[in-house]
């Protein structure tokens, strides 16, 4: 679809910030699978995929989509889709930059080597750059962070703790 055919309401919906990490939009997070705008009917259908099964922000996101659509004169219908499942590969390059600028280490780019085996205890070495100073000498403090999609790490060089967007 060329940019010229994207309606204003679709752009507005895609630009809604994530309620828990407001520096990144739903679009850059890869949560919006499809948007269908029915101009004469005044209806917009948004197909949304959760980052995690239990993502507690889904209700708030759906409510915000309905609110933004209403302001543009549309009735929104939000549908949840699970297949194919969301992964951090869906986060856009722009989204990764936004996360890093905010102080959250973004997930590795597609094709980057990362841990896969769930039982390789102690052998899993994953390089995560500090979003503040860029050092690769960082360590994990907690595998589960302040939201379902983040872990907590610390930089051994600048000594600052930081959030990491968990690779999934």
């Amino acid at each position, binding site marked *: 679809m060329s940019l010229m055919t994207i309606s204003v309401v679709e752009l507005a919906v895609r630009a809604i910030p994530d309620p828990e990490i407001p520096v990144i939009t739903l679009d850059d997070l890869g949560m919006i699978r499809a948007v269908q705008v029915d101009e004469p009917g005044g209806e917009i259908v948004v197909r949304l995929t*959760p980052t*995690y*099964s*239990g*993502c*507690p922000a889904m209700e708030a996101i759906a409510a915000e989509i309905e609110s933004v659509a209403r302001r543009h004169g549309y009735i929104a219908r939000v549908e949840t*889709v*699970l*297949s*194919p*499942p*969301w*992964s951090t590969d869906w986060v856009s390059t722009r989204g990764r930059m936004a996360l890093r600028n905010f102080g959250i280490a973004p997930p590795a780019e597609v094709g980057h080597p990362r841990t896969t085996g*769930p*039982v390789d*205890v*102690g052998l*899993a070495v994953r390089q995560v750059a500090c979003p503040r100073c860029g050092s690769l000498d960082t360590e994990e*403090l*907690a*595998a*589960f*962070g*302040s939201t*379902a999609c983040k872990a*907590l790490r610390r930089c051994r060089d600048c000594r600052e703790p930081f959030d990491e967007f*968990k690779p*999934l």
Partner: protein
Amino acid sequence: MSSTYEHPRTFSAPLRYVPGAPMNTPGRSRQGLEGELAAAYLLGLADDALVYAQRLGEWVSRSPQVEEDMALGNVALDLIGQARRLYTRAGELDGTGRCEDDYAMLRDEREFRNVHLVEQPRGDFGREMVRMLWFATYQHELYTRLAASTDQTLAGIAAKAVKEAAYHVTHAATWVVRLGDGTTESHERAQLALWWVAPYVGELFTDDEISIAAADSGLGTLPSALLAPVRARIGAVLGEATLEPPAAPTWSSAGGRRGVHSEAMGYLLAELQHVARSHPGATW
């Protein structure tokens, strides 16, 4: 405030399938029975996830460190998310039109199909990590197979959940190694935890009429086929943790999949369902 007592909503069509009852009950369509069997299979998976999430949630403010409050709360959140989608699908399949809240909040103990393992009261942290290692590894093997289910909705739920389960396995395995290969005290407690959990794990891998029907139809997978891969993976973790695999237990829990639960279940449900039952139909 109204003084009139309003009875919680009840349903005219609860799960009618009773294991062992004749399959060809007059007046029941074959399609209806298949739907009920499929829903019953999903309820087993969903109830395991919901009840274990309730137990894990109890750790928030009770963990040895604040990071574990967060971790176990996050694992619980993943499990609740899985349960919600499984309940929703069950309501579509069994023809009762029940929603996720109806299943979670308004069923009684005998209608829950979870195994006894997940309803047991929490012990020390080592016991929880051993229980989580078993449950998460079981879930990971299960969801890996269910991602190929003939039911597209279940396949989608499983493909999503399998990655979450993998993360839970890693977390539990890291702790079991750390505790087992730690101090004398932590090693002894982790070993005791393995013995404690042993009688409860068999139920996860026991086939019944419902899971056999699910495997036959392509919806599900046979629980018994998961035992060997789960045991191999846990064995590898125990080796690294310098822990002994426990001997075969002298007794095994049974009956959870038929709605027969241990004493702990009623108390768990009382806490889980209290608000929904005290304020029927409340919204915010």
